[in-house]
């Protein structure tokens, strides 16, 4: 069947089978490589995207479920706050091998939209579904804290 949805601010339409997953369709059919395939069973958070603004795992979402909805990947997150996050991630060394980064970035962005001034505990709680195999958690948390300190969401 043909599904249509909003992807990172543009309208897309693509033919999919019911057993195709959103992650695979994004990466292999639509060329959006930000969400990563890692565990495939909902443990690691590397495939996180925003579906109608809420973070979900694209490896456990059927592509047909995105029909008529809005999908935002790390590539589609733009604006002043995204810039601040990227800069803070770079300055704090929050990116090591980079594989978990798109998921971490989407989650950090979602968190700052939910809570203007999250505490360290709240940041860690919000990111607990995202694994970093380089174990660079401290720097990732610091990156987010830096944005919070700079005033976060305008």
């Amino acid at each position, binding site marked *: 069947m043909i599904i249509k949805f909003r992807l990172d601010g543009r309208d897309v339409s693509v033919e999919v089978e*019911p057993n195709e997953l959103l992650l695979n369709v994004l990466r292999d059919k639509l060329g959006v490589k930000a969400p990563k395939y890692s565990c495939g069973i909902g443990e690691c958070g590397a495939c996180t995207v925003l579906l109608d603004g809420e973070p979900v795992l694209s490896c456990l979402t059927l592509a047909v479920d995105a029909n008529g909805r809005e999908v935002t990947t790390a590539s589609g997150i733009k604006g002043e706050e995204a810039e601040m996050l990227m800069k803070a991630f770079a300055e704090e060394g929050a990116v090591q091998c980079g594989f978990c980064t798109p998921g971490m970035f989407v989650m950090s962005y979602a968190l700052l939209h939910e809570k203007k001034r999250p505490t360290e505990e709240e940041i860690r709680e919000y990111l607990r579904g995202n694994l970093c195999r380089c174990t660079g958690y401290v720097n990732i948390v610091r990156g987010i804290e830096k944005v919070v300190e700079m005033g976060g969401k305008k």
Partner: protein
Amino acid sequence: MMSSLNRMNTRIIPFSFSYHEPTSLEEALSLLSKLGADGKILAGGTDLIVKMKARQAEPRHIINIKKIKELRYITVDGDKIRIGALATWRDLEKSSHIISRIPSLLDAASVMGGVQIRNMATIAGNICNASPAADSAPPFLVHGARVKAMSENGARFVPIDSFFIAPGKTALMPEEMVVEIEIPLPPHSSSSAFLKLARTSMDLAKVSAAAYLKVDGGTIEEARVALGAVAPKPIRAPSVEKELIGKPATEETFKNASKHVVKDISPIDDIRSTASYRKKTSPYLVTDALLTALSRIGGEKR
């Protein structure tokens, strides 16, 4: 368990199925009645899709119910709380003003997966998946929840005690689906708590326990205790409950009663823990759940 994980292709769903997207409950029930055991309800997908990737479930028809918006609610209705089939774990956290009456369920929500899983996974799906370790099961058991199951022939209520049959198996008929979970509003001077032992809070439980207490003048009037991951299904602990009722609500009573839990459980060795560890820790977890529930009575609920 490990080897089956290694064999599974987690990248794709390795078989085809027909896809249905009913927009009303009537349509969904009519599909279920037509398809019977060939049809499988999809809600959050956080259990079902994982099973399908591993070919542990190979439904020929998927009935995605997420378009039936009227099934997504958490409300108070008279003397009960009603949780619709599509209410997610995050919906539950956001309804904390209601669910604070059922503190053990909020405890479960706070240790259930990460934000993404809690956004996707439904509470009804958690019980339909019927894992012996399901986080919602012990709270529902101690609060005497009822499951509203519907088919084209109408609705029936299944007490949660008889809903779970075996790992992955519930009392639902093939043509039935869960439309709602109903919890009686607990009386004042009662409270509940849920605790779990797990590698990390996101992980499945090695052992979990919920306790519900109603105390009058320092005496335990009502007591219900339930455990997860220590039997083929989530269970009540009648041997503990018996030792609590009519006794003073003290740590000593709890400790003595909790020892009896070994009579009610039948744990096994698996990837997450051993039978011996589960037997040794269960009494302590039950005591802690009872103490936490007691500490919440009358004061702050959570």
